[in-house]
């Protein structure tokens, strides 16, 4: 199918982006005023895109379901943002960032996109500092860096454990400036319900005002979907409660291919589940692995004693602890990539070494770091390095300054003091590398419809490196989309504003209204959450950290059956003319129930293990993931055909010109 | 500048007029305190204050304006602030996050205003009457006697004591708060807080002492 043309520019890899920018069509400033663009979502990608498009002169309409654009879930990103600045002089470069990202993604991402990402990464930092983002600084007043998993340099810029918040507030401030100027029209508490196509092109959306229930029509010359990832298909994830796949799924239903849905990142350091009431999981930043050491007891008797509360982890001697990441991966140790760290934790817990009541937790221990920093501080201050109490106090201060908010968060949730006793952590769904298929211009297979940030699939392959999501979101929004969208819009300067009183809008609106009344009139016996939780359990058990053909087939059948039951028996209270959260949720869960099946189908199709996708059938004797480059060096792009089980696979072959495809090793 | 209509300008106005009144309060206190030690000194200063044209025709109107301004502004602010939340809370635990004094400045303020009315009736109106209406001959030694005479009445003394207690409550929040209002919150803040705390207790307590002292010695 022609729509899978990835439109990668010709020429050497490092010149592609520059020459592409030089050759694509531009829209003149006078004509930009005649063009409307809809941006759905106001996370890092959506907010930065809205701001930049408005600065360029386009008329932007931005939508978010939250009560303010500042609440988008990018705000919760903790650790940092990568950029190849090489401020630390430790050998970093654009090429190395590009290489690390491709390798981290287990050679399943598109080379040209990733190189572009690495190229613009440095602009992001310059831009954010100019906007007043308060990044961490050293005593000389210059920017500080830390290191993240899967790399050997320190290239991560951060603002304590709240980097996402600071970057989003930066993008939000850029948006505010344009809202104040009237160039962005902001629609808070609005949800995109469907995409409207006119002559095969994206020409607007149907949106619903969540407060009044009013269904609205919005026309535009292009639609940008920046609605984030779909981790909530697992019910329990580190995503926000409202995070959903609906915008992405609606455009998929209208013709945009959905790529690599099974590529999901399970983050190794989250706070373990405490009970059935759990509504979401809380991440503990990967940056903690800079200083925390991960371990479980060596002896199963100690595990039992700890679970029964007879033994405290701090009492366990050094030789009775199994620092399994340091043991298995001496080169990267605790800083192996996320997929590797997660599987290793699961392996230990499956073997019976989990340290909490549910058996699903490992320790993340800061005692060594506290001592190390404490001694350093004592030395700097000319105090006694052998005074254990003093060293501990000084060390705790250093740790507090680096991770204070995370430690506080942990203490509030678990009711244990992580300065005194090791944290308990367990992997949880965190990020989805898969998403809407886009070409080099970030356009989906629907002309005029774009997908940016986590909503698209393009940059992270089968596994994302830490601190790269923020980088990608801002790169897409600030520096890529605003250029590439002009290439398409250059043909639209004479189109005039898009009317919404057309049969296409009528039909799309009617479909939305029908769906709403279907939910409200169903009067079934189970709540929306009942289905969401059931779906989540199927996904976690059968499409989680390790997958096999049998389980995936079961998952497909079970999700299909659950979906049918949902439409028969779901109970959505209230009306469609009020603030009705259950109704909004019903629409989102309906889409998850379709996506879940496609997810399982994609995972079933890909019989290799790569990155976050681990097929039990494809592993080395030591239990490491084993890729099958010969048969699977491609992007799976699924075309919608009604039932998710009937989706048609299109393959975008991945060609690596600059990089030699190797077995990923962090040993 | 949006003039006195801006919330911040009102804040400065409250703070500065308050600080001005604190200064006045201090000088009033010092003068009164002399009455405990020396009738002559008290009479001498009182005579000066009551007859010096600068004090009478410049400082006195400024002071009256300051008092009226501070009260009017306080009432306006209170009304505006109440309007900012027309539907109140069913349950509000203000004690969990702020002092009683800070939440009840209007109450202590009204008490002080009532006291001022009484105080004017007691001293200021007779004084004005004496000097500018009746135009009686000036007697530099009459002040002490007049004052002591007032404090013979135990009810008046009790009223004064209660009023000064409210003045203390008002000062406990208001004095240090005015520094914050004009933008002073830095490494000296702890010192300022300590000083204002001491001032807010010592000065009203001193006034109370003077009232009781004269009552007992009358």
């Amino acid at each position, binding site marked *: 199918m022609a729509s899978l043309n990835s439109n990668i520019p010709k020429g050497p890899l490092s010149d592609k982006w520059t020459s592409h920018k030089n050759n694509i069509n531009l829209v003149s400033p006078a004509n930009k005023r005649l063009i409307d663009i809809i941006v759905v979502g106001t996370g890092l990608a959506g907010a930065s895109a809205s701001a930049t498009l408005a600065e360029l002169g386009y008329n932007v309409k931005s939508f978010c379901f939250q009560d303010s*654009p500042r609440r988008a879930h990018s705000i919760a990103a903790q650790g940092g943002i990568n950029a190849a600045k090489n401020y630390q002089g430790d050998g970093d470069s654009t090429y190395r960032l590009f290489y690390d990202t491709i390798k981290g993604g287990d050679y399943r991402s598109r080379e040209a996109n990733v190189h572009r990402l690495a190229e613009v990464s440095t602009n992001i930092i*310059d831009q954010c500092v100019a906007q007043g983002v308060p990044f961490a600084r050293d005593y000389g007043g210059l920017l500080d860096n830390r290191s993240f998993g899967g790399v050997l340099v320190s290239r991560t810029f951060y603002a304590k454990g709240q980097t996402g918040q600071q970057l989003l507030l930066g993008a939000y401030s850029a948006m505010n400036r344009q809202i104040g100027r009237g160039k962005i029209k902001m629609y808070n508490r609005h949800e995109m319900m469907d995409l409207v196509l006119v002559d095969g092109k994206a020409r607007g959306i149907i949106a619903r005002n969540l407060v009044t229930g009013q269904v609205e029509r919005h026309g535009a010359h292009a639609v940008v979907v920046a609605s984030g990832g779909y981790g909530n298909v697992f019910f329990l994830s580190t995503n926000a409660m409202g995070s959903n796949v609906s915008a992405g799924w609606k455009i998929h239903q209208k013709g945009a291919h959905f790529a690599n849905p099974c590529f999901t990142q399970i983050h190794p350091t989250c706070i373990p589940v405490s009970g059935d009431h759990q509504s979401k999981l809380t991440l503990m930043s990967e940056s903690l692995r800079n200083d925390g050491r991960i371990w479980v007891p060596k002896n199963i008797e100690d595990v039992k004693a700890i679970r029964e509360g007879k033994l405290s982890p701090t009492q366990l001697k050094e030789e009775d602890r199994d620092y399994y990441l340091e043991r298995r991966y001496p080169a990267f140790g605790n800083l192996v990539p996320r997929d590797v760290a997660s599987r290793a934790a699961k392996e230990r817990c499956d073997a019976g070494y989990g340290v909490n009541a549910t058996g699903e937790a490992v320790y993340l221990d800061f005692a060594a770091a506290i001592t190390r920093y404490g001694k350093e501080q004592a030395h700097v201050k000319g105090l006694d390095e052998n005074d254990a109490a003093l060293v501990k106090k000084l060390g705790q201060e250093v740790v507090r300054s680096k991770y204070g908010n995370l430690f506080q968060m942990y203490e509030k949730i678990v009711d244990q003091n992580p300065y005194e006793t090791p944290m308990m952590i367990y992997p949880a769904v965190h990020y989805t590398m898969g998403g809407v298929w886009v070409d080099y211009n970030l356009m989906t297979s629907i002309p005029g419809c774009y997908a940016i940030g986590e909503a698209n699939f393009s940059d992270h392959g089968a596994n994302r490196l830490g601190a790269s999501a923020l980088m990608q979101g801002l790169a897409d929004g600030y520096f890529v989309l605003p250029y590439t969208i002009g290439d398409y819009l250059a043909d639209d300067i004479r189109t005039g504003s898009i009317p919404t009183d057309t049969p296409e809008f009528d039909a799309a609106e009617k479909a939305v209204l029908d769906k709403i009344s279907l939910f409200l009139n169903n009067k079934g016996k189970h709540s929306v959450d009942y289905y969401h939780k059931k779906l989540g359990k199927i996904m976690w058990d059968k499409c989680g950290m390790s997958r096999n053909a049998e389980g995936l087939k079961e998952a497909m059948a079970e999700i299909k059956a659950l979906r049918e039951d949902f439409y028969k028996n779901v109970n959505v209270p209230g009306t469609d003319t009020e603030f009705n959260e259950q109704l909004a949720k019903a629409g989102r869960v309906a889409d998850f129930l379709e996506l879940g099946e496609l997810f399982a189908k994609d995972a079933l199709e890909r019989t290799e293990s790569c990155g976050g996708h681990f097929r039990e059938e494809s592993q080395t004797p030591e239990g490491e993931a084993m890729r099958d480059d010969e048969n699977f060096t491609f992007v799976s792009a699924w075309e919608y055909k009604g039932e998710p089980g009937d989706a048609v696979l299109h393959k975008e072959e991945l060609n690596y010109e600059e990089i030699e495809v190797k077995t990923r090793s962090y040993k | 500048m949006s003039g006195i209509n801006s919330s911040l300008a009102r804040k400065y106005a409250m703070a500065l007029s308050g600080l001005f009144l604190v200064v006045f309060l201090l000088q009033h206190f010092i003068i009164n305190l002399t009455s405990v030690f020396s009738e002559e000194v008290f009479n001498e200063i009182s005579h000066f204050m009551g007859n010096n044209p600068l004090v009478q025709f410049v400082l006195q109107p400024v002071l009256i304006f300051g008092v009226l301004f501070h009260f009017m502004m306080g009432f306006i602010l209170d009304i505006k602030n109440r309007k900012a939340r027309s539907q109140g809370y069913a349950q509000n635990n203000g004690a969990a996050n702020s002092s009683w004094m800070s939440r009840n400045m209007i109450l202590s303020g009204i008490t002080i205003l009532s006291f001022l009315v009484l105080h004017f009736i007691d001293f200021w109106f007779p004084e004005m009457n004496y000097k500018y209406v009746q135009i009686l001959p000036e007697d530099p030694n009459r002040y002490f006697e007049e004052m002591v005479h007032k404090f013979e009445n135990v009810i008046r003394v009790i009223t004064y004591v209660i009023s000064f207690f409210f003045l203390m409550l008002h000062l406990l929040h208001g004095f240090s708060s005015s520094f914050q209002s004009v933008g002073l919150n830095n490494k000296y803040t702890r010192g300022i807080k300590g000083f204002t705390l001491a001032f807010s207790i010592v000065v009203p307590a001193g006034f109370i002492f003077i009232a009781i002292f004269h009552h007992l010695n009358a």
Partner: protein
Amino acid sequence: MNLTLKIWRQANATSKGEMVTYPIENVSPDMSFLEMMDVLNEQLINKGIDPIAFDHDCREGICGMCSMYINGEAHGPDRLVTTCQLHMRKFKDGETITIEPFRANAFPVVKDLAVDRSAFDRIQHAGGFVSVNTSGNTQDANNIPINKHDADKAFDAATCIGCGACVASCKNASAMLFVSAKVSQYALLPQGKVEATDRVLNMVKQMDEEGFGNCTNTGACEVECPKGISLENIARMNREYLFATVKG
């Protein structure tokens, strides 16, 4: 744990609301407050009662969406947490818990416990930004060294999550802590100093127009702020505004 919940119910912005009592049983002390509300809502839905609307999203204390006034305090009795981070272990078995929306005329009720805080957005539109285009062609980030002390202070101010607890807690429904946090962040950084005068004047003007009350320095906002934003920021804004006014 068994609890009695007294919750504010209000169908929409224009209707009259009332407190309604709901009992809830078998609450685990490990639940977060919102998880307890989820359980209640699930029970209400199954009984055919309209579930209680409340704002929430990230549930890890950073998005600033959750906004409940619990037992007379914004975000409940615990300190430095949002409602979503408040855990049931902070309450006693058998306790009656009063839950109300954040109240201020500038925050009209949307439904039940959800309020409209777009006034905060409008204050930000008035000046909560540095006027720099997002072209990426600015100078190198390290060309502007910033004193670590100032950078840290700017960061502390910037951690405001815009939840509105300051307004809810203030007896005057004043938004000074929120506005001053933004003003301070930029006032402390060289990038923000260029427009500092206009920023503070415009943001305060918008704040006043939104109908927030005046600050009387009770300090309640600082105590209830889930991010511990300091009153120093308000003093800084007072200073900035004073200088800006004098400068004109």
